[in-house]
């Protein structure tokens, strides 16, 4: 806060103005949603005042009873954490293999992965659904997780390859001379050094899975498996006229995301930045 005040004093007025406007654009919808969540319908329709006249906690009660936001939250965590863990575990070794080992036709195989990065998942949505169905995993979190890992693999491998490629070959060769096995080199030497890459991939996978909607509509069908985006859209569709409750539901849906972000923001930002500039 103090540094912010100092910023206000020191900054170039144009920069200050532009930043304030852009930040307000980010922030105002959140403020509006959250304050509206405490208003009743009359006030939502009638008044523009920022703060509610009387704080309607009942809206949150209605939202909490009308949707299972606790459940949605847990489901979203399951999907996001599961996808992240498996994605990293699967993509890191492959990225290493492309970067640091000799394999015939590796470049062709790599092109095949590159192709997958640009392939929009929308183009294979129907058969992808049937694939998950044939595995008996429709309406289970595992089905969604596996599908997300599968569709995310090309980017993950590509990203990890970039990180491993930047590590000096000399490290592996020295260890090999010391009699270390290939596995030891990978797990003991290379993996720890690729930590920023693992973090980057982790953040990308986590955000992607946390916000997933397209596949989830088809794969998570019943109320007990739904994630936050699905649950919120459904709540909105079934509570069209209780605006206060809807704003409360939106608030319940966004608070976990914001909290997770604020707590992990250093990792988020550096992971995203590293990932994107490497990728």
């Amino acid at each position, binding site marked *: 806060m103090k540094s912010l005040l100092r*910023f206000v004093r*020191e900054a*170039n007025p144009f*920069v200050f103005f*532009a*930043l304030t406007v*852009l*930040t307000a654009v*980010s*922030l105002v*919808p959140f403020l*509006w949603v959250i304050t509206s969540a405490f208003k009743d319908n009359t006030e*939502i*329709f009638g008044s523009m005042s920022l703060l509610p006249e009387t704080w309607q906690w009942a809206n949150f009660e209605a939202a909490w009873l009308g949707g299972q936001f606790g459940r949605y939250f847990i489901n979203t965590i399951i999907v996001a954490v599961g996808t992240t863990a498996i994605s990293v575990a*699967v*993509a890191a*070794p*492959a990225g290493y293999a492309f970067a640091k*080992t000799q*394999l015939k036709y590796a470049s062709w*195989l790599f092109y095949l992965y590159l192709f*997958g990065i*640009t*392939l*929009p998942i*929308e*183009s*294979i*949505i*129907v*058969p*992808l659904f*049937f*694939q998950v169905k044939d595995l008996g995993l429709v309406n289970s979190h595992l089905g969604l997780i*596996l599908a997300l*890992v*599968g569709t995310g*693999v*090309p980017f993950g491998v590509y990203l990890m390859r970039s990180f491993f490629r930047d590590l000096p070959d000399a490290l592996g060769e020295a260890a090999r001379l010391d009699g270390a096995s*290939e596995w030891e080199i990978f797990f003991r030497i290379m993996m720890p050094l690729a930590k920023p890459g693992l973090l980057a991939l982790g953040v990308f996978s986590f*955000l992607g899975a946390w*916000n997933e*909607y*397209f596949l989830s509509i088809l794969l998570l069908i019943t109320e007990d498996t739904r994630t*936050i*985006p699905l649950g*919120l*859209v459904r709540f909105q569709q079934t509570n069209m006229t209780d*605006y206060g409750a809807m704003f409360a539901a*939106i608030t319940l849906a*966004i608070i976990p*995301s914001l909290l997770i*972000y604020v707590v992990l*923001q250093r990792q*988020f930002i550096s992971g*995203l*930045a*590293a990932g*994107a*500039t490497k990728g």
Partner: protein
Amino acid sequence: MNMDAQLRTPVASNRTRRVKKLWTGYRVPLILLAPSFIFYAVFVLLPLGRAFQLSLTDWNGLAPTMSYVGTENYTGIWTESRFLTSLWRNVIWWAMHVVLAVGSGLLLAILLSEVGRGRFFFRTVAFFPHVLSLAVVGVIWGQLYHPLIGLINASFERVGLTALTRIWLGDPEIALYSVGVASAWQAYGFYMVIFLAGIQSIDPQLYEAARVDGANGWQRIWDITIPSLHNTMTIVLTLAFISAMKGFGSVWAMTQGGPGYASELVAVYVWRTAFQTQAIGQAAAAGLSLAAIVILFSFLFNRWRDKVGSYT
């Protein structure tokens, strides 16, 4: 027979030896690659093959039978104005995404790089929208645009600009743009972070030299920052292109492609055709056409950017 055996044995053992040698040589990379390839094959490559197969049929998604119809689905959609218009909307959508999301992201990053203090705060806040799902963003903006309670119209009325109020999502002339703004809102924090990282990796000596030469702020940005971001820009524009070609969540949550087809992007077209009209073959053909376009353009764009080369 004896001859046969004599002839065969060396060959066989030769092959075994070769396989063995291959295996010892490639065992490690193959084991490392295997899990990722299995996932990729099962959830992308096989469905892709199946999508192609389905695109040549008239399957309705449910019936036990389907007929082979050749390229009928492809000729059908490529002569259908609804599909072609949805493709054109993706182009508009992409342009909006570049101007609004990438543009604001770049602007923010440059502004932030100009300030010493307060950067952390602004960066944190500007990134807020990106931690939300596009579907959640769609729900929020659906309310902002709401004809009865929406903040946007209410604000215009409040400051006396009643002439600017619109039925943002009901008016077919502007529904697509309304949804595009919401999507850009969700994305610009992401591009900002990438641009910031790109700016931070620029050699400070370049700026120092420019300062010695007496360059002002604008010149520094124009002559050093922007050209130095060549590679970052390539990545960002590729990402923006891919994500703009997808565009589903926010549209689905706000307009479902309506009114009529006014905000129908290709991804929404695919969804409606597959799950509402039950024309799976046609939907598969549309999806694969989109895929071909995205892949081709990403490839050509990156080739071109590499040729143009980077500044540094």
